[in-house]
């Protein structure tokens, strides 16, 4: 029987052979656990698509449009050394408040969680971290919940002993997160994080790939610092050199990220870094290949 994943790969191969080459290469390095998780994920996702009268083909086209955007932005980045978007207002108009873009972008990002090796490996790292800290998590917050995958993962490990909140600036993201998480115990807040004033503090905050979307990442981390219990942990992921249509703040290397973390009053407790491409560090340095940084942060004493 054809799996969802093999269907997706075949369809990508028919539309973008070069990208299919990368995906096939990614899959060679994965174990059985990946394939069973990916199948479960894509079947759940297909059910969500059906509820919206959409098909997997639609999602694959969305994904390839996002890949095209990233490739174009990467070419510009190689020329200029800068991200093309400079301000949050600009990105808000260009992307977050533009249904034409958000309609494919959210689905593209969702697909990438199981098609890109570094995204999947970061998810596995997150899973380990939640397992490790789960006994201390009663109040959980996800910032920029996007596709809902991380909150889903947290719920599957921690269970119903915790309360879950998810805040996102985009209605499109919240809509898809609600369907992917499919759990009535999660509270959703459509809000800019800087205007988010919850009644309680959190034991664990997760914020995946958001820091690069703001003009002032220190200010954002300080806001999270104020939302976190003193003994709580903040889990963040941040790409270096990752040009996309909605990235503003350029972290050139992991030291840039650590510097921002320190300025906001945090210190890393655990870290995991992985390149976005299967290349040696020398090639990554030469071609400014994006690296994904994941960190578990605690408040400085």
């Amino acid at each position, binding site marked *: 029987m054809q799996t969802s994943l093999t269907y997706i790969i075949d369809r990508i191969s028919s539309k973008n052979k*070069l990208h299919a*080459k990368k995906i096939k290469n990614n899959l060679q390095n994965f174990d059985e656990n990946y394939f069973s998780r990916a199948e479960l994920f894509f079947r759940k996702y297909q059910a969500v698509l059906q509820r919206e009268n959409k098909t997997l083909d639609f999602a694959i086209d969305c994904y390839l449009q996002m890949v095209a955007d990233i*490739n174009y932005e990467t070419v510009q980045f*190689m*020329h200029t050394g800068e991200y093309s978007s400079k301000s949050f207002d600009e990105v808000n108009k260009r992307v977050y408040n533009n249904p034409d873009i958000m309609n494919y972008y959210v689905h593209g990002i969702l697909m990438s969680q199981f098609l890109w090796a570094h995204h999947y490996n970061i998810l596995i790292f997150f899973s380990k971290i939640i397992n490790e800290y789960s006994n201390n998590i009663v109040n959980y917050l996800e910032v920029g919940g996007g596709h809902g995958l991380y909150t889903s993962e947290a719920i599957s490990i921690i269970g119903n002993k915790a309360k879950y909140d998810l805040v996102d600036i985009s209605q499109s993201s919240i809509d898809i997160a609600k369907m992917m998480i499919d759990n009535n115990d999660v509270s959703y807040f459509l809000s800019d994080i800087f205007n988010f004033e919850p009644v309680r503090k959190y034991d664990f905050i997760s914020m995946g790939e958001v820091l690069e979307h703001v003009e002032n990442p220190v200010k954002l981390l300080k806001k999270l610092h104020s939302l976190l219990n003193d003994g709580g942990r903040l889990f963040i992921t941040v790409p270096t050199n990752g040009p996309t249509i909605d990235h503003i703040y350029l972290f050139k290397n992991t030291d840039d990220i650590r510097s921002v973390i320190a300025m906001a009053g945090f210190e890393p407790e655990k870290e995991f870094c992985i390149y976005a*491409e299967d290349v040696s560090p020398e090639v990554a340095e030469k071609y400014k290949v994006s690296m994904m940084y994941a960190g578990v942060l605690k408040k400085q004493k």
Partner: protein
Amino acid sequence: MERNDVFKQVNEIFIDVLDNESIVLSDQTTAADIDEWDSLNHIHLVVTIEKKFKVHFSSKEIQSWDNVGEMVDSIYEKVK
């Protein structure tokens, strides 16, 4: 500039970017024929071609080429 001149320069760019002296392109050459021609190196081929020929490709153009011939046609249209 003639199409053949564009083609020869593109072949040199492939040799340089993919670091493989033995690459001999034809119009029908695809990524399936050259191991090193992957999505990452494709970006660097595009960047180098844009610099060399002083041209700019749209997002659609970057995705659209199925083989070297189509890539060369796309450059030639901009420089002829």
